[in-house]
């Protein structure tokens, strides 16, 4: 299945999806040293986004989220790609600086189509999301 979306940061990525239908801050919600979601009582507390395609609504919280994403990427603990409903500027600047292929504004409700564990491929330069068809 092919879904059109809007490019935030170009490039290609693929991986297993982690889906969170909420707002996410890479500073505070993610432990950059492990790649796991660390905010106490977060619905996905303990889940790793390292090497995954992370699907969420948009960014939130501190303007330092981009630095946390940068640190996670340096340690190999960042998502390989991001799909969100509508990227906000802190998230956009973070993925552009860190070089994480990212798309937003998918043409359909992404939360009805992508489930955690699905294999997802992004061609952010072309603005395309593909679900399934693992090339593992």
């Amino acid at each position, binding site marked *: 299945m092919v879904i059109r979306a809007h490019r935030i940061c170009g490039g290609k990525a693929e991986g297993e999806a982690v889906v969170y239908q909420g707002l996410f801050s890479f500073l505070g919600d993610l432990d950059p040293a492990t790649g796991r979601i660390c905010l106490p009582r977060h619905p996905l507390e303990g889940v790793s986004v390292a090497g995954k395609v992370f699907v969420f*609504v948009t960014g939130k919280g*501190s303007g330092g989220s981009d*630095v946390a994403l940068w640190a996670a990427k340096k340690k190999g603990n960042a998502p390989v790609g991001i799909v969100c409903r509508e990227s906000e500027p802190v998230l*956009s600047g973070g993925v552009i600086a860190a070089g994480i292929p990212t798309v937003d504004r998918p043409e359909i409700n992404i939360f009805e189509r992508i489930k955690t564990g699905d294999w997802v491929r992004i061609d952010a330069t072309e603005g395309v999301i593909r679900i399934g068809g693992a090339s593992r």
Partner: protein
Amino acid sequence: MYLSEEEKRMLDDNRCPGRRRALELLVRLAESHDAERLVPVSYAHVAYDFCPEDFWNSMTEGVHGTPHRVTTHPSFSPEIWEQWGLPHAEAWRGEHERKLKKFMALGWLRTETCAEYLLGIFPHKGDIVPMAGSCMQIANNSLFGARVDRMGTLPSLAAAVCGRTPLMGLLLPENRRADYVFELEDVDVTDWTPSHYHCLGYCIGNRVPGYRVVAVNGLPPNLPFDAARALVISMPTSGTIALAHVVGTTPEAPTLSAVSRGDASVNLIKIGKKDLQTTWEMLNFQDTDRVEHVALGCPHATIDEIGRISALLGGRKIKTSLLIGASAPVEALARRQGWAETIEKAGGRFLPACPSIGNPFTRGDISGDKRAKSAATNSARCAHYLSSVSGAKVFFGTDEDCINAAVTGRWKGEPPTW
């Protein structure tokens, strides 16, 4: 995207690779949000010490100064941490000193605060000021009517280096009207402290599903500065809000109709007792009553907050460590007033640095095995980050609850009855 002749020259100028890279980053950010062009800044604000050193070096290479003013967020304070005997202070020193040296060589202003408006450095209505720090962004947008879009630490350095920022988001007047209107029901705000407003702001941030503008309607007019600030700055902790009109208080919102979209697209949300009770509970991440540390001044304390703390401490001694985040000029005023001495005699400490994300007493990478594992605070933002960044057990309450905890080492704060 349109680029001016000067911007094109910046992109071609290989003698100043930092400025070229900075402009490239801003252009990519602008394009990702379909901005038509960049605009010159009134001034800019960075968070130099929170920038990764490789990024800092890359953006400032070959840059020898800027024609516009640049100020900064709090930095780290390894020198003071060392005086306080925090075990890993030394490890932070080299990088901090290298970045500070370059910062000073750029001729930038060492304000080191997240509440720069308290120093008399604040934007006029309509000023374009790209800045690091979500809580100063929302304060400058909402309380002063500046045009500030949400922006991360990394692009804010790029904007400071080039003196340009993308014309997008909240820089555009048509994007500054409220998508969400919040009103209180079944609660009486008469006896509210700033902590109650922190709680309301955190609650509102949680209710808005993305980057949207809000208005808060029905509060008493001309809210005291500490209350209005507490309300707006808590929103970008739990949410993505960077502009909150407080009707009857903030400059763009003399009335609701002045800021509301006035059509069916506006969402009206009522906040009641139950919402505030749940939020207060969410901000208390504790499972014990033991308190080892108290963090106040998040964002950096106003002189009024320091006055309240000093009065509450009186001649008492504290059992916990107590950190008050405050800028150097505000601390100096507290010292002239005799309040700093009262607080320090009790055992409290001032730091012109971040008492939440960068709190040296709770962060294991600074205080090692001396790390405080539980902490109390009067700030929703601080509660959130002490818990998530430091992994501390956190208590959230009023100034009075926090000072009692500092004196006794135990938390006795009760949630408000609203």
